[in-house]
């Protein structure tokens, strides 16, 4: 199709719909590509030559790079070539083989600062998958959170190490921050206080060996503007204290060492929930394939909550479980004796979840049938952990 020296066609080919789109839509399309694919669109035709420079979002992705040096060379050149053109979001992902941000931490800090100076609203940092790492874990360290931004609204961290000092600094130097997501991070912090944060997600599901650190502390969340809170499998943390969560609408909480009493106090703190919420303390109940563990858990529940828990708003509890599950009777007894006033209970056959979830409880609050409180039973994390119990 190459016509060297041929005359340029002014109007685009009628069959070429994409090149006929306005620039801003093409910038939008390019923004969904990885940074390297985005730059490479320049070669399609003269119409595309400079479009990549104006893409409002950059996904710097190490996938497909032969080496760390090539990757670093690429990102340095990319940021220099873009210059100071404004950006909305910047994602940095070390998902290439043998590419770890922690190996060139200072350079990665420079890239992130460069992006923050382009007034990004969203920043994502994804270190190399630590489950992939046979030797030592190499979490990307945010030492003292060495950045500042008045524009940053969303921060996503994955396989990043962050401590109390850095968390505190983050909330003070990023006054516009509304969303914080920490997936599989190593968080040496217990206090989360922010007046601006609206959405907080902490998820440890694939965390490899948190037990080794033996952290046993109460995690405190004090966030009056928080609208949604999702916490999943905080291993080692047995207690969660919700200080001021008056704006909360959605919550899902899954504590590794949660107790029925603990769950009830969280439920108390969540009593202002306006809409939908989920709560998942996993050892309240039970795993049907290991009946011994299950009985232990049930008696723990019964002993743990000597006094009935009062919950005026609770209307209905839905139990979703496989047919013939023996725990249901025990469960119904516990719920009817421990919850005041006793809620309506309905039992539904279970389908569609993977093997590890055996019983699911949905607590329905308020006037409209909204799920508020959701107990996911079984061991919703790695299979090798569950097998240890048997």
């Amino acid at each position, binding site marked *: *199709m190459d016509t060297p020296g041929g005359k340029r066609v002014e109007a685009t080919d009628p069959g070429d*719909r994409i090149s006929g789109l306005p620039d801003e*839509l093409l910038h939008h399309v390019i923004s969904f590509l990885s940074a390297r694919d985005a730059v490479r669109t320049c070669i399609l035709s003269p119409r595309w030559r400079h479009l990549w420079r104006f893409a409002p979002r950059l996904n710097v992705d190490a996938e497909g790079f032969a080496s760390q040096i090539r990757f670093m060379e690429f990102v340095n050149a990319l940021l220099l070539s873009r210059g100071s053109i404004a950006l909305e979001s910047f994602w940095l992902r070390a998902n290439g083989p043998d590419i770890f941000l922690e190996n060139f931490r200072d350079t990665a800090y420079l890239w992130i600062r460069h992006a923050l100076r382009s007034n990004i609203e969203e920043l994502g940092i994804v270190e190399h998958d630590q489950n992939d790492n046979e030797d030592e874990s190499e979490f990307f360290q945010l030492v003292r959170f060495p950045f500042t931004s008045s524009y940053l609204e969303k921060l996503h961290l994955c396989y990043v190490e962050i401590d109390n000092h850095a968390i505190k600094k983050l909330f003070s130097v990023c006054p516009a921050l509304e969303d914080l997501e920490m997936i599989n991070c190593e968080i040496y912090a217990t206090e989360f206080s922010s007046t601006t944060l609206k959405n907080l997600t902490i998820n440890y599901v694939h965390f490899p060996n948190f037990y080794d650190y033996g952290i046993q502390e109460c995690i405190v969340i004090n966030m009056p503007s928080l609208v949604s809170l999702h916490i*999943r499998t905080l291993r080692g943390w047995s207690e969660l204290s919700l200080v001021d969560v008056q704006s909360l609408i959605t919550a899902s909480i899954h504590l590794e060492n949660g107790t029925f009493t603990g769950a009830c106090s969280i439920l108390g703190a969540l009593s202002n929930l306006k809409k939908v919420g989920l709560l998942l303390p996993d050892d309240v109940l039970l795993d049907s394939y290991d009946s011994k563990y299950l009985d232990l858990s049930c008696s723990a529940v019964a002993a743990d909550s000597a006094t009935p828990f009062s919950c005026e708003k609770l209307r209905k509890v839905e139990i979703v479980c496989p047919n013939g599950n023996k725990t249901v009777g025990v469960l119904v007894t516990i719920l009817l004796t421990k919850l005041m006033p006793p809620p309506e209970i309905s039992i539904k056959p279970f389908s569609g979840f993977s093997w590890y979830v055996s019983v699911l409880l949905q607590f329905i609050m308020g006037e409209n049938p909204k799920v508020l409180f959701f107990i996911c039973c079984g061991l919703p994390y790695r299979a090798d952990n569950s097998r240890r119990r048997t």
Partner: protein
Amino acid sequence: MEVDKGKGEAEETRKVAEADRDTVTLKSSDGKLFEVSKEAAARLSTVLAGMIAGGSIDDNGTDLKQIGSEALENVVDYCNKHANSIPSAALISSSISFNTAPFKEPEEWERKFVDRLSHDALFDLVEAANFLGMERLLDVTCHKISEMMKGKSPDQIREVFNIKNDYTKEELEEIRQELAWAFYDD
């Protein structure tokens, strides 16, 4: 002003109480009429929201001269599907499988919605979404287009989209030199 409506749909009754009519009628460039939920239209399209707020909605069909009937049908279909999608189900499934996606990834039904479109219908819909200021639909359609480019060589992309490579050999050489850092491992 309370109007008693005898319409069936139970979940619609709440909305009906809030306004005289719960739908708006849109007219395509070729004169076809489509009804769409007023709430969904106002929520999903900044342009329709402005028209509804400004009272420039015509009960006999608001003219949208820039949009053909096929694209408008898709727009209306998208709005109605969006209005009916159940957020609690989405919430439960998302709490069970976390992901670290950078964008609000298209949901399953949105993916299916754009996947069934022909090449031309997809581009008509992008243009309609852009015209109507439908941010989410624009995201979903542009995301679909980007997926058609992902993992493909420049030649393959040109073929998919019928892009004519009217660079001269000299120009191509110049670009490859200027941006050599982006073309290693080729």
